[in-house]
């Protein structure tokens, strides 16, 4: 049986229809961490289906063991793959896997380099505040952000310190701390890498757009464990409307609106049964292509 058409069809469904279902659902906003997991499960499913389809073209009659065999063949460990088509299939699979790894490394390193230069200046210019557990920079425009990675820093401008009340500032810093503790920068690099490997694929575009927003929501949720909703909402409004320069910073305001409505809205947390079902789906989705190529009982 040649499973390649079925695998490609499955990849097409995951790459185009699945994002529409995700964007049309309400639960991702209520369980942002689970939603990030599902987006990445879809990404893995998509990549895996295409890789297995490529391998299946290389060796149509085989199940997974045979596919591993043809990989060995290409690497020169066994008998050589017999046709040009077979070699192209294996080569495509190798290219896909390598592109993911290279994309992740590229985006992670680029972000790290950008942070490195920034950190060098920050360490001299900023003043560490033990009281706030943050670095304060003399600047009138309200700003708050974090430098993740090794030796993480939370940075607030004096503009933000002047603008916000004590608890509001605490909520902002708690939000930034959630980014650092959750290693959100690595998750961002992962989403950038996937979008980089598959430009133009709807799933990749939506992963690239949705994951950053969901990470913000996850950080908001963590801040809400220690601070009241009204405090975080007030801080968010003050900071978003207080950043002076127009134009250059215009992007992103819509996401603040989504986050704010979410914080203030009544519905909190997805139903446990729904969470279980979605979680199970996220585990099964990437397994389906593997089962398709290696049917149980044929081993």
């Amino acid at each position: 049986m040649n499973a390649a058409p079925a695998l490609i069809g499955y990849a097409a469904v995951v790459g185009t229809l699945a994002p529409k279902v995700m964007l049309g659902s309400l639960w991702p906003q209520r369980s942002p961490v689970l939603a990030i997991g599902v987006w990445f499960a879809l990404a893995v499913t998509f990549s895996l289906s295409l890789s297995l389809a490529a391998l299946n073209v290389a060796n149509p009659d085989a199940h997974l063991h045979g596919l591993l065999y043809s990989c060995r063949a290409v690497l020169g460990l066994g008998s050589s793959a017999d046709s040009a088509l077979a070699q192209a299939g294996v080569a495509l699979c190798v290219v896909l896997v390598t592109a993911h790894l290279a994309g992740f490394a590229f985006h992670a390193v680029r972000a790290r380099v950008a942070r490195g230069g920034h950190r060098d200046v920050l360490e001299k210019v900023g003043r560490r505040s033990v009281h706030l557990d943050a670095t304060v920079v003399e600047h009138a425009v309200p700003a708050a952000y974090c430098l993740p990675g090794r030796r993480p820093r939370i940075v607030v401008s004096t503009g933000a310190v002047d603008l916000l009340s004590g608890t509001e500032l605490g909520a902002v810093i708690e939000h930034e701390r959630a980014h650092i503790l959750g290693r959100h920068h690595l998750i961002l690099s992962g989403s950038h890498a996937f979008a980089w490997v598959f430009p133009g694929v709807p799933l990749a575009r939506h992963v690239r757009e949705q994951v950053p927003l969901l990470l913000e929501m996850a950080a908001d949720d963590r801040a809400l464990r220690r601070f009241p909703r009204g405090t975080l909402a007030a801080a968010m409004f003050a900071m978003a409307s207080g950043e002076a320069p127009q134009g250059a910073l215009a992007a992103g305001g819509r996401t603040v609106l989504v986050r704010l409505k979410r914080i203030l809205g009544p519905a909190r947390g997805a139903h446990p049964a729904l969470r279980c079902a979605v979680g199970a789906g996220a585990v099964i989705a990437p397994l389906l292509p593997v089962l398709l190529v290696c049917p149980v009982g044929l081993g």
Partner: protein
Amino acid sequence: MRRLGELEAEIMDCLWKWGRPATVREVVDDINAHRPAAYTTVMTVATILYNKGWLTREKQGQAWLYTPVRSREAYSAALMEDALAASEDRSAALVHFVEGMTDDEVSALREALRSTGRGL
């Protein structure tokens, strides 16, 4: 063992605080007021800062007089400009609390707050 960055910050801090050219000896004495620091170490780090373009220096007798190239405020402004730049690689490197908004977005936000009875 303190990191190089911390000593760099301490030296810059002294020079910005005083607002005048100063010798390594003066900086060492200032740091020694609250912790021990070797003259040669401070001199090495001051030379590093000079080579990195943070300090200028001119000879006065036997010693070098060091001056910051730019004020602390100028560096702060450049740093924040860099942080607030909405470029592609910045969005991955520095995770902001919120992005800035247009006037229309601010009024939509105010409306959302009003509708939930939490007017600001």
